[in-house]
Every structure is written in C-alpha cells, then in structure tokens.
C-alpha cells in the first residue's frame, strides 16, 4: 500500500512537471459530448442515503474498511 501511495505521488509529480513546463493536454471529451456521462444512472452512488447505509452494513461485519467511495461525486458534467 505504501508503494501504491509513493507511486501515486510520483505520477502526480511528473504530471505537475508536465503542466508547469508548458506541455498542454487538450481535453479529449468535449462538454457537448458528455450527455451519457451526465445521466443519473452513471453516478457512483446514485442515492447517498441508501449507499451510506450499505457501507455501514459491511463495516460492521467485515474487517476491511475505507475507500468505500463517497456517494455522489460525479464527473463534473452537470
């Protein structure tokens, strides 16, 4: 897991370098192409009250916890 965190840190560091060095990556999905992604059925955790409850059910019965994913979130395509 520590390796995973370090890997993420290194990846973000290089992406930061790319961004500050003038490399520009153009968004490959334009706003007008996000109709499908904006559909409510595409949300991670469509109903927060129901999603939170299932996290609680599992947390009370399983040893693992964390990274369940917050209800809502989304793709920024509202």
């Amino acid at each position: 897991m520590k390796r995973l965190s370090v890997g993420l840190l290194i990846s973000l560091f290089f992406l930061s370098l790319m961004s500050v060095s003038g490399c520009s990556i153009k968004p490959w999905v334009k706003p007008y192409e996000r109709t499908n992604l904006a559909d409510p059925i595409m949300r991670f955790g469509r109903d927060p009250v129901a999603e939170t409850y299932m996290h609680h059910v599992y947390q009370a019965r399983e040893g693992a916890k964390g990274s369940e994913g917050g209800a809502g979130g989304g793709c920024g395509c509202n």
Partner: protein
Amino acid sequence: MYKNIIQRTVIFASIAVVCLIWLSSFTVHAAVLPEDRADVMYHSYDGGGVTIDGPSVLVRKSFLDKFSVSTNYYADNISGASIDVELLASEYKEERTEYSLGMEFLNNKTLMGLGYTNSTENDYVADTFYGSISQDFFGDLSNVSISYSYGSDEISKTDDDAFGTEEATHLKYIISLTQILSKNWLMNVTLQTDVDEGFLNNPYRKYSYIAGTDALGIIRDFSPEIYPETRTSDAAAIRFKYFLPYRAALGFEYRKYSDSWEIDAWNFDINYTHPWGEYLVFDVHYRWYSQSKAEFYSDLFTSKDVQNFMARDKELSTFKDTTIGVGVTFEYEPQSWGFVEKVSVSLLYDRLSIEYDDFLDARESVIAKTAGGGEESQYSIDADVVRFFFSMWY
C-alpha cells in the same frame, strides 16, 4: 505509534500539496454544489439472530448559490441475540441514534466541506469531525477530492460501573480522483489510510480457551478479549462506470485492504442499472468479499493468557461473503407541483451470505452439548437487507 501517525500525515500532506500544485496549473472550471434533495428511508437487516431496523432522513438545501447544508438523522433499533450474545449474555434491545450536520462552500473553482456527526448508544458515544476539498479541473475531465476526519469515542459498559470509561480516536485520510476516460467511460480511484488508537475491542466479547476435557471432548471456557491499542490500515479502490449503447450502465469495483493486525482483504462488485420506459429503473449487483484473519485471532486458544493479545471476534476471522442485490425505482417529474422537480420511490433488497472458515459454532459444545470444543461445525450467516426510501428533488 506517533512516528506512524507523523509518517502517514507527511505522505498525505505531500500528496495533497502535489495535487494542489497540479490543479493550480490547469485552467479550471467552476465546480457545482450537490443537488437539493430530501430522502426518507426505512432500513432493515435480519440475520445471525439479530434484527436491526430504523429510519434515516437526509435533507440537503443550497442557498446564495455558494452554500449547501445537509443534515441526517439515522437510527438503529437492535433486537435479538447474536451467536456471541447467546453464548455469553442474554437477549437484549438497544438503540443507536446518529445526527450529522454538513456544509459545503463553493468558492469560484473550489468546493470545500465541513461536517460533524454524533452517534449515541447507551454504552458508546462517538463524535466525528471532517473536512474536505474538491475541484473539477482539466476541462472538467477530472475531479480530485481530499478529505480528513477525526473521531473520538467514549466507551462504557452497561451494568458495570467498575469498567469506567475508555476512549478511542480515529483518524482518516482520503484522496479520490474521478476521471472521464471517454464519452461513455468514468473511472474513480480512492485511497484511504486510517489510524485507530485506544480501546478498540468490544468490552462484552470474550475469547475462548481450552479448560480441560470431558466425555464430549474439549471443554471451552471464556475470558475478556485483549486487543492492541493501535491499528493502522490502508485501502485502495478502483471503480468504473460504462454507459451502454441502449441507455443502461454497467459498473465494476475492486478494492484491496491491509492493516497492521495482518488482515488482508479484497472485494469486487459488478452492478448493472437498466431504465425501463419513462418511470422505472432496475438495479442488480453481485459483490464478493474475502479476508484473512488477524494475527491474534483464534477460535480456541490453547490456554488462558497464552499470548499478549487474544480475540475471538468473527469479524477478525478468515471468511468470505457474497451479496446479491436487486432494486427497483419509480421516478416521476411532475409539471405542476410547485417547487418539486422530481420524486422517486425505491425498494432495494440484498441477500448477504457469510461463510466463516475458522469461527466455529460454539453453541454446539457450550449449550447443546452435541460436540466437543474445536469440533463444532463452521458458522455461517444468511442475512436479508432491505432499503425502502422516498426521495424528492426541489
């Protein structure tokens, strides 16, 4: 312990700083506040001899185009007798109530959140504070969220004043990236690290050890569990959502977990959402979970106080569980209901089946006297989980 906390805080702070540098270098677009909605839910869990049900009410409202507040009331009414209670105590009824209050603040390109939760039982009080910051960037293709929470618990024991009050603290660090991969693909990656410290075991639960033999075999005896006072854990998850050509969504999740108690776990979930006509949405999912036991767990220790830490909590044993879930939602968008934009009614049912590898049904040796200790059958649970809720958007 403190070295561990400092190390994790430094790693988390480093990731957060690099993320913020990265974010600040892109042309960012304004984030949006969560949608205004209210939910009223009845929830029920029935399995392993225990029934837990109650309401949950969640209301969220934005104002001044910059703020959004939410509040949640949640209750668990617990009745029945789990296998642990059957072995060591009498049937009981208990209630847990939880109140949450949260607020999001939208400032140009950044969404910041603060919140507080209080959970109360007759022998357990927990307070949790959390903060988060999230931002859409890179042409709204990406969203990064960073969260931190601090929890403080006070634990007592019913009908045992000599136990006094114990304390525990919980720190959580979470970083999450949601990424648009294509016109039909969404991805989310979440990393979380937790540091728990203090009194971490259940004061009522006991471990089992060999106290001798009789005609049936080994005789079990019990003694209060002893846990380490620290636990650090890491969890990483990746999720995908794919929009199918005929308006339906296919989702997948994989999560990996490990902690300092030597529990290793992973799970996957595959889910499918299918709208039907104008008003109905059907959901179906399958989840599979597996974990290895904590290093200080045993179903039956060789003797009393044989090692520093001893537990017989089935949640710390080796087991697998599966969940099959189905659901249906009726949605309606009224044209002339004033401020109401949309309403829905949902019924979700999950069947959770847990098969324990090294947690035996000790009732057979202690109560029924049909087997010797350590020779009982493996324990399992089949539980029914129901969520029925009404939602309103305004």
